[in-house]
């Protein structure tokens, strides 16, 4: 069957079988290999992509489930040469070592900050609780996401100095 998705702002189509997994469609058919295959068992989150703005595990979706939907992968974070605030945060705070989990971590972080621009460390930890990192011990990942939140708030408050940042939306999670 033919699958059409809007991915990183572009409409893309490709052939898939009914059994084709979304992660394989993205990597092999659309040739976007920033989305990783880690555990392949819904545990690790290396395959995280955003579907209609929400993080999902693309190893645990059929490609056909994404037909007509809007996807965002790690390739869609930067705008040209300008890094996304989350990417900048991971760079500044050394939020990665081997980098294998990083695309998933950054997409979860980007989705969190869309919903809750000023999360607490507790809320950050809940948001990344479906993504595993075997290198960092998570401390720098949390710092990186907080860095992104703070830099985004600072950039937003530049035109009107001294204006408090908008209150965070009520967080999901417990």
């Amino acid at each position, binding site marked *: *069957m033919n699958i059409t998705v809007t991915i990183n702002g572009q409409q893309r189509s490709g052939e898939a*079988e*009914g*059994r*084709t*997994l979304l992660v*394989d469609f993205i990597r092999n058919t659309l040739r976007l290999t920033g989305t990783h295959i880690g555990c*392949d*068992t*819904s*545990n690790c*989150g290396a395959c*995280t992509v955003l579907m209609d703005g*929400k*993080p*999902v*595990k693309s*190893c*645990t*979706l*059929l490609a*056909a*489930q994404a*037909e007509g939907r809007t996807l965002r992968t790690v390739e869609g974070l930067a705008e040209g040469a300008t890094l996304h605030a989350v990417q900048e945060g991971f760079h500044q705070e050394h939020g990665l070592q081997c980098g294998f989990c990083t695309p998933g971590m950054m997409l*979860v972080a980007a989705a969190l900050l869309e919903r809750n621009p000023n999360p607490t460390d507790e809320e950050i930890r*809940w*948001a990344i*609780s*479906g*993504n595993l990192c075997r290198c960092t011990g998570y401390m720098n990942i949390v710092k990186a996401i907080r860095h992104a939140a703070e830099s985004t708030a600072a950039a937003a408050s530049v035109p009107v100095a001294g204006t408090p940042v908008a209150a965070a939306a009520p967080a*999901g*999670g*417990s």
Partner: protein
Amino acid sequence: MFPSALDYRAPTSLDEALDLLTQHGDDAKVLAGGQSLVPLLKLRLAAPGLVVDIGRIGGLDGVGTQPGGLHIGARTTHADIERAPGLRRTCALLADTAPLVSDPLVRNMGTVGGSVCHADPAGDWASVMLALNAQFTLRSKRGERTVAAADFFQGPFTTALAPDELMTAIRIPLPSGPASGTYLKLERKVGDFATVGVAVQLELDDGHIARAGIGLTAVGATNLQATAAEQALAGQAPSDDAFAHAARLAAEAAEPKDDIRGSVDYKRDVVRVYVQRGLRRALAQAREGRA
């Protein structure tokens, strides 16, 4: 791993979906969010000829109030329950459970009805449905019927759902008097199945317990309803002694197995402690006027 070859259909109407289930019977599997089914397909523990994706049918999701209770579309995601406005006030047990199901990414796709129909005895929702006396609406080309949670779960991964039936809604009866509940889950890490889970619901009438609902997760061939404990509480004045007695009865009703998550004795004692703790919390919340 990828699944065995399968046909995939994504009907846009309920009628069309029911037609497919009628035609294909046991050879068809319903995919709602796919968070249990896709892993089973990948492990080839399930190899249906046809997957019927109900993700494009309107009217199957959302949480709404109706006279006497709540109406939950069967395809409502765990995340939608987690974020349903005001649910903590109307039914704290549902609100407490949602954030403990699997992990945040799985909760964005996985559905309550899918989890209930999958009927993994280590799944969280079935215990909640037993404690709340939930009623499931099942549709087929033959018509519609309602099955109580107590009659629905028949064995591991086995339910009263016929091959041509689809769960469309879950109805939660809620009393007008003070009531509340909570869900306690012991897990090794986020995303793991429960070592033990306990769902508790208390309904009060004039200071006495009108009804207690207690569901147990991961300690039996199905999620278990601790009926002896429930009956011991009904009509009683709530007290630490009554709660301790009910907790012992619930622990006796549990049938845990030794495994990597703990021994039989350990899990049984977690049931006892969690039932007691859950009853105390439910009572405090009910008296505060929180559902």
